[in-house]
């Protein structure tokens, strides 16, 4: 008993037995409970007809589709709002983080109070607040017009929808070609600079190429992009594209909330680069712009990226709060299916599997990135 190794083994055996007993206890209860209610477990219900509607869908879906397809629609809605939110939250966060460090007294105070307020109020409250504001906008008849192009009312935002005509595929192809070309030029310029020390304004040339080539093709192909501008009819709008108030509220709340957290991360990242670095860079004769791009940002990113990815993951998980305002994401549709079919274990299992694989994929990326940028010391 005094031997550390045997003590360790005994402790582990004890824990193992406790866990096994716990699992056996749960399983037997589950079997008994399911038998009592008369539910068959299994994923067969996924092919049953759903009989409910989903108002926002990225793929074809009717109330005659299956539960499985409904779940896919929900998953795509989760992916949609998360992707939109991640983009805007990151932009907001970087702007906010830089502005908080600004010398400008009033700007830094203003941004600080935004960050502190947004961070310290529950996200769910913010989502419901924005949703309540959006759904109390004027009715369709008295829609607020934004320059006669888009209309805001209590059913959401109706925007012009792009119409791709013949020839648009050439513009897209030209854009892809320009991106590839730009990547090539940047690589060539870096290699030449390493070999000869000559600097080539690669980024500016790349930008001109990426904007210019598709633009030229666009005009040569006869401007193949048209806009379907919504038109007022008596009761509704004709044409255009409607964004639901649920999506706008969720997107906005997720972006500002996560953006506030990201701005703290960005601020900490920039502050972590010691002052000597920027002083040394200017002693070497680098311009302020070059110092930022070549010295500060690469070092700050090393500190910023890992917590940034976990914020992105948090945003994705927080998008499940959609259920409170009726945005039909994976959890919300899963909840409906759960109520209709009673297959609680399976639905919860699907939720957990989806979110777990998302977070495992994110942490795998994070580990890979950390290894790539880890400081190589001697």
């Amino acid at each position, binding site marked *: 008993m005094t031997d550390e190794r045997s003590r*360790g083994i005994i*402790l*582990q055996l004890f*824990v*193992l037995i406790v*866990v096994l007993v716990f699992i056996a206890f*749960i399983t037997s*209860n*589950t079997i*008994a*409970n*399911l038998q*009592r209610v008369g539910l068959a477990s299994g994923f067969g219900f996924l092919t049953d007809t759903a009989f409910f509607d989903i108002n926002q869908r990225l793929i074809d879906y009717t109330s005659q589709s299956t539960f499985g397809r409904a779940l896919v629609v929900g998953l795509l809605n989760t992916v949609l709002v998360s992707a939109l939110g991640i983009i805007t939250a990151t932009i907001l966060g970087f702007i906010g983080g830089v*502005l908080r460090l*600004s*010398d*400008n*007294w*009033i*700007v830094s105070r*203003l941004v600080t109070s935004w960050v*502190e*307020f947004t*961070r*310290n*109020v*529950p*996200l*769910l*409250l913010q989502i*419901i*607040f924005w949703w*309540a*504001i959006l759904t*109390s906008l004027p009715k369709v008849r008295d829609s607020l017009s934004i320059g006669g192009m888009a209309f805001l009312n209590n059913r959401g935002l109706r925007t012009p929808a792009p119409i791709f005509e013949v020839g648009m595929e050439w513009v897209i192809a030209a854009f892809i070609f320009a991106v590839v070309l730009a990547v090539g030029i940047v690589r060539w310029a870096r290699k030449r600079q390493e070999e000869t020390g000559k600097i080539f304004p690669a980024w500016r040339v790349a930008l001109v190429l990426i904007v210019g080539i598709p633009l030229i093709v666009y005009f040569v192909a006869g401007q193949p992009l048209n806009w379907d501008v919504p038109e007022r009819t008596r009761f509704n709008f004709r044409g255009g594209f409607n964004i639901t108030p649920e999506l706008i509220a969720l997107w906005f709340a997720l972006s500002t909330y996560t953006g506030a957290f990201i701005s703290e991360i960005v601020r900490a990242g920039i502050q972590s680069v010691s002052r000597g670095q920027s002083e040394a860079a200017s002693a070497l004769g680098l311009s302020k712009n070059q110092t930022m791009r070549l010295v500060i940002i690469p070092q700050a990113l090393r500190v910023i990226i890992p917590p940034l990815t976990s914020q992105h993951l948090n945003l994705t*998980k*927080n998008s*499940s*709060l959609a*259920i*409170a305002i009726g945005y039909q994401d994976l*959890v919300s549709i899963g*909840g409906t299916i*759960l109520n209709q079919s009673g297959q*609680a*274990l399976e639905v*919860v299992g699907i*939720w*957990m599997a989806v*979110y*777990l694989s*998302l*977070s*495992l994929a994110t942490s795998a990326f994070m580990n890979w990135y950390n290894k790539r940028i880890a400081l190589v010391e001697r």
Partner: protein
Amino acid sequence: MTQAFFRQKDQMLGERPPPASTVGIVGWLRTNLFSNWLNSLLTILSLYILWSSVPSFVEWAFLKAQLGGEDRFACSEEGACWAWLDQRLGQFLYGLYPSKETWRIDIAFILLLPALAPWLIENVPGKKWLRRFSVIYPFIAAWLLVGGWFGILESVTTNNLGGFALNLTVGLAGIVLSLPVGILLALGRQSRLPLIRWFSVIFIETVRGVPLITLLFVSNIILPIFLPPDVALDAVIRVIIMVSAFASAYMAEVIRGGLQAIPKGQYEAAAAMGLSYWQSMRLIILPQALKISIPGIVNTFIGLFKDTTLVIVIGLFDILGIANAMVSNPDWLGLSSETYVFVALFFFAVCFSMSRYSIRLERKLDTDKR
């Protein structure tokens, strides 16, 4: 006689005043607000935002606001309508708790102050006794809230607990339970025993990988399936279990960060002194690791407290649930801005003071730097 090419002190010219543009108000403005064109632009933009939002908000919330009245029709269109405060404040604070028993909630949260004092304030008189009190405090508070026990207090079902009292109860119970469980999980993840390490890793990563909402659904739908048919737990108890499990996984990761920051020499020195594993953890490692992790721990507390609003998803009426119910009540329809701003202030007050306290503590404990 040679000419002296230096001046004696009394012959020196007086200091000239700095240029008017660098001192005083003008100088402050130039360096802080208008140092270059971008800054000037940002300043003007910020001033515009402040000018267009602050006065109209003050006018809406205070100057043109309506304080009394029976329902929303008593309020004018222009200002905020605070008439509901009079009738509904009790619900926002206590939910559906029987109104003649709410004094018990008041006492429970007043007693919280002496229970917290020994942990938050350093030189508090009678610290030893207050600490002992804080150990038994959770039991006193639970008894006050639920009642029963020899019929001294009328028993109240936990389903009646609501409003901000529910947020505070779930939040505090989560904090009290998640810290020790989190410490154990963090130690388990660092353990040399593979079985314990793997159980800890699986628990932590599973809980951290899924949204809290799915865990609350588990507490609501799956837990009754897992338990024997004759055992029924109250919804509040189930929520507290799940919220604590959720927070303890995050807590474990924060504390693991602290444990990893302790130099290996500390572990070896503790072992060299003949301390057992638990002794070295309790006396050497954890005091240092917890000190480093304080900011993270407080952040987890803040997150946990904000997350208590999620209980509305499974049908409990916390302060946000009461607000939602009131906003859809015909008497008070359309008062969403007033209601949600009011609720936001509660959370802001609690969370902001927690984060300020943590910053102060961090500065005070920052002993080894300079």
